[in-house]
């Protein structure tokens, strides 16, 4: 019988303790890996919320602010930019496309975004993925709306449903634009970005909502009115060549007719992410503490079991086991427990992830990647196992010293 077999038999003889230890290490490694996983997924889905757009242009404010309200629909713009500016930028020779965006209205707390049909062609998220339709198509008429996947799901809207929009952004409908109803013509597929929570209407529709006196969707005379907007909140700009980003940015920043700014989405996104890093670090510190507590528990159990197995170690010693072999026996035991714990932890993370994945996606727009074990997870797993080995040194050393100084234990 090898020492390894002996260790296994020893562990089996105290099933309950072993299982509890494995479980507690499993839970703490699950916590450690889970937090990392959520952080990574959050970072990915955060940084992937917009791509393919070279510049975001808006009235001069802070770049974080512009990013927050244009991409994440959070906060309010300080000022709008004029339609003339939008058209001027569109006329730049370096510019390939411009998609104007108007914000400020809501529907059951979900933001309404006024834009052009180009939006569906040029908006990209994640790795340059385009928006795709689950049902229907993009809007062609003033009082049509395209819904983000989450809105359609939670508010249970179907194609051709009619809905009213409210002025301002609040859950309780403030002031409904009662006379103007919008017909659902398209529902987008889930993207895991704020697009899922957005109602897209044509810019003309947005203007119609805000024109004094009000246009009614029922009035046949609508199209005769000029629905060209005076101003928009911001616009997304795509360039013909990446090389002109900085020159175009400079040109817009030094715009003479009104104060404008242009931001590069990727740069501003990573700046924003860095600013919320502290929360993330706090989480990590807490999970590390939890893991530490688990290992103190492990140490405690190992020490108690060492006390209980004094006799047994003495028997092995008299049979010719060297103190090093006895230390090895104890270390093998805790390595076995730690490794099993980590495996349980990985398993738990994946099972929980599998269960929580759809919930997180719908509720928080967080897309988790559970396809395989990431490098970070591997490092964490190895780290925990390493910690387990370090912990087992203490009882192993005690056993070593004790068995050197003690021979026969006579009762």
């Amino acid at each position, binding site marked *: *019988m090898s020492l390894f077999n002996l260790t296994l038999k020893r562990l089996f003889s105290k099933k309950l303790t072993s299982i509890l230890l494995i479980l507690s290490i499993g839970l703490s490694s699950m916590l450690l890996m889970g937090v990392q996983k959520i952080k990574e997924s959050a970072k990915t889905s955060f940084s992937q919320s917009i791509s393919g757009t070279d510049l975001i242009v808006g009235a001069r404010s802070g770049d974080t602010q512009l990013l927050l309200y244009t991409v994440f629909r959070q906060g309010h713009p300080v000022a709008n930019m004029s339609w003339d500016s939008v058209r001027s930028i569109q006329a730049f020779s370096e510019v390939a496309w411009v998609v104007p965006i108007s914000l400020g209205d809501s529907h059951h707390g979900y933001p309404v975004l006024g834009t052009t049909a180009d939006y569906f062609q040029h908006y990209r998220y994640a790795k340059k993925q385009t928006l795709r339709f689950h049902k229907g198509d993009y809007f062609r008429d003033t009082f049509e709306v395209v819904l983000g996947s989450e809105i359609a799901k939670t508010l249970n809207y179907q194609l051709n449903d009619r809905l009213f929009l409210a002025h301002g952004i609040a859950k309780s409908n403030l002031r409904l634009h009662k006379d103007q109803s919008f017909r659902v013509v398209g529902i987008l597929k889930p993207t895991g970005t704020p697009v899922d929570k957005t109602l897209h209407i044509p810019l003309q529709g947005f203007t119609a909502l805000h024109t004094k006196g009000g246009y009614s969707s029922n009035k046949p005379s609508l199209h005769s009115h000029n629905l060209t907007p005076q101003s928009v909140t911001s616009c997304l700009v795509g360039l013909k060549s990446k090389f002109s980003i900085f020159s175009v940015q400079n040109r817009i920043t030094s715009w003479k007719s009104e104060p404008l700014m242009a931001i590069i989405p990727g740069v501003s996104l990573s700046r924003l992410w860095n600013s919320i890093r502290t929360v993330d670090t706090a989480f990590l510190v807490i999970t590390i503490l939890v893991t530490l507590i688990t290992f103190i528990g492990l140490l405690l159990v190992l020490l108690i079991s060492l006390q209980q197995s004094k006799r047994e170690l003495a028997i092995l010693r*008299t*049979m*010719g*086991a*060297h103190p090093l072999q006895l230390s090895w026996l104890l270390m093998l035991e805790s390595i076995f427990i730690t490794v099993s714990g980590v495996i349980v932890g990985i398993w738990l993370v994946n099972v929980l992830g599998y269960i929580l994945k759809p919930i997180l996606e719908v509720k928080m727009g967080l897309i988790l990647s559970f396809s395989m074990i990431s490098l970070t997870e591997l490092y964490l797993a190895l780290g925990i196992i390493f910690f387990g080995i370090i912990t087992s040194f203490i009882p192993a050393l005690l056993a070593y010293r004790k068995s050197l100084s003690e*021979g*026969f234990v006579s009762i």
Partner: protein
Amino acid sequence: MANALVQLDNFFLTYQSDNNFSLNINHFSIEPDSRVFIEGPSGCGKTTFLNAITGLIKPNRGNIHILGTDITKLNPVACDQFRADHFGIIFQLFNLIPYLSVIENIILPCTFSKIKKKKALLNSQTLADEARRLCFELNIDDHLLHKPVNQLSIGQQQRVSIARAIIGQPDIIIADEATSALDQERTDQFMTLLLNECQTYNLSLIFVSHNKSLQSSFQQVYSLNHINETELETSHVLV
């Protein structure tokens, strides 16, 4: 001249923590193929003596020759290996590893000694077969063999201990108060079995006990108080 089984010269051992106890043996030897009984009251150093001759503790001074090898000169690993190869040891109680079956307990010494393993495999095809054979010799019922050892009676446990001590036929069997937990009838049975086995396999036996009534079964009887040349009267009063 044949090597003595055990030979102590100029031997002195004392514990740092207990200055009142010391074991001082100028010269003592046991001849090969002996069945030796060493008697002494508790506290006189019987266990210390056994620890010393099995190499578990080192004396402060002096030499211990076992079968011609001076074990005080061996490094710790070699010393443990020497013990594994040449000794079979029986304690008084709780001799066995609780989470192993009877068979597993018996073959355990072969884990630590290649010599024992080799000798055991000369007798039987596998180690488990050898354990079974010894159990049969020692009247341990077949149905007990795969039971956890803590389900056995004390008498049965001590018989398993004999099997474990003699597997692979080590040169010296050491019994430390092996019968103190047994009643008179079981003690007699145990002694008969142990001596028979030692006879069968031609093993030397060093039997240590405070129970003088056992000495009738042995050719040679020593009293540790006579071997130990420390002034015992004082240590007795102080211990």
